[in-house]
């Protein structure tokens, strides 16, 4: 990081000139209808989400990279990373449905979370793993073809 990137450069000043008034609209709205109990709950989720990511999600991702991805053959690393990432994202996106939170809240409304989400999520995850397997297959075929042609394997270097 050079001095230029930590100075009062024009981009930062313009960004502050545009951004701070926009932020002020949201902050001012707190003042118009302030409720301390609501604010405490808001703050818990606002700060908590950031802490959850920085202290748990990202370190877990680092551990997966260190103890799983670094220990598999190089050519399988990217497809496996893609499959694991897509699996985690799919489960995260479907988590309220998997747990049936909405259905539990409105048990008389059969149109809320109407599916068997365990099967639904398993289907989406299977699609992700199938796509990753296809990716791996293509990479293997390409590497063999390049080996036969006498060139260096593209993905043989550790990154």
């Amino acid at each position: 990081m050079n001095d230029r990137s930590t100075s009062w450069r024009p981009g930062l000043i313009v960004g502050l000139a545009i951004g701070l008034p926009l932020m002020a609209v949201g902050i001012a709205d707190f003042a118009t209808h302030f409720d301390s109990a609501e604010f405490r709950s808001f703050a818990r989720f606002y700060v908590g989400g950031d802490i959850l990511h920085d202290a748990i999600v990202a370190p877990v991702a680092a551990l997966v990279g260190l103890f799983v991805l670094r220990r598999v053959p190089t050519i399988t690393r990217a497809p496996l990373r893609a499959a694991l990432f897509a699996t985690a994202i799919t489960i995260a996106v479907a988590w309220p449905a998997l747990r049936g939170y909405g259905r539990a809240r409105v048990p008389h409304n059969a149109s809320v979370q109407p599916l068997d989400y365990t099967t639904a999520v398993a289907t989406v995850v299977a699609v992700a793993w199938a796509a990753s397997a296809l990716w791996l297959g293509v990479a293997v075929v390409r590497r063999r073809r390049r080996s036969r042609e006498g060139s260096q394997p593209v993905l043989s270097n550790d990154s």
Partner: protein
Amino acid sequence: MTPVAVSPVHDERVAARLGLALGVTFTICFLTGLYSHLAQHPAWGFVLPARPVGLYRLTQGVHVATGIASIPLLFAKLWSVYPQLFQWPPVRSVAHAVERLLVFPLVAGAIFLLFTGLANIHLWYPWHFDFPRMHYRAAWITIGALAVHVGAKWTTTRHALRRDSTPADVTEPAAAAVDRRQFLWTAFGASALVTVFGIGETFRPLTRLALLSPRRPDTGTQGFPVNATAQDSGVISLAQSPDYRLVVSGNVARELSFTLDELRALPQHSATLPISCVEGWSVSKRWTGVRMRDLLAMAGAASHASARVESFQPSGSYRTADVDHFQAHDPDTLLALQVDGEPLALDHGFPCRLIAPNRPGVMQTKWVKAVVVR
């Protein structure tokens, strides 16, 4: 130690591309969310137009789909810049301190918006605050922090987005560039995956693939979703009473009162209109009923009159809804008695519900008992 020696994905070229994508998606979410907010809480002179009919459907479908698509992009972006969290010294100047300080509302706000938005479409409320209000406030704070971040990173991002932006003094293995590309493919691929398997709740060609959606547009009473049921809204006995009357009152030359049979005997009009939920699902149906403008004319209301529609619901934010003069006089704004040729089911607003073009679903008031002209 060069940046690429640590890991190719913790790189400004990766961060710039993901940041650009997130800048676009969050701006779309902000504008579509603001449109929905103004539709429900008119301000700054905004009046909800009746046309185009499907504008609200489009904007809210895009709002939710774009928000979900942003989830993998945000995780990937945060991963690409994660080492910067531990940079030392943490601040190098006052300007740098300001910039870093304002990264917090950007990251915390982005996570908050995506989490609460996702929970809301699933009707999951693990908090003790009013969701629309806090989502709205956080959106302004986050978009402001995003503007600061874009300004702060403008030069860096422009440089990083150039095709050949490897610093001249850095020699990196070819595999590093491949790894960066693969990481970006992974992030955008995961984004496409959850979008394809989620957008079917509003985009009919993909309904069969709507495996991650909390709603399906073909599932529910009379073949489409229900937002609030009659039982949960506490209207079952009132809506089914034989003494039902629809009253037209307020700023009128003569007050009117109709039984259900009298409403059925009035000229009926049919219109194909979407019911578009703020939570992202939508479906078009053929509605039949009495035009609101006909009722207003019968009551001798002014040609520019607007109205407030009142429900039997004893409580709740949406027991009444305002209909501006554009919508009140639109030929397709109905007090509907039927959907797809059948009498409305109780859960869809029997005996009578409002249905109008380009309008949030929560403002398509069900179990209507009165139209108060203004």
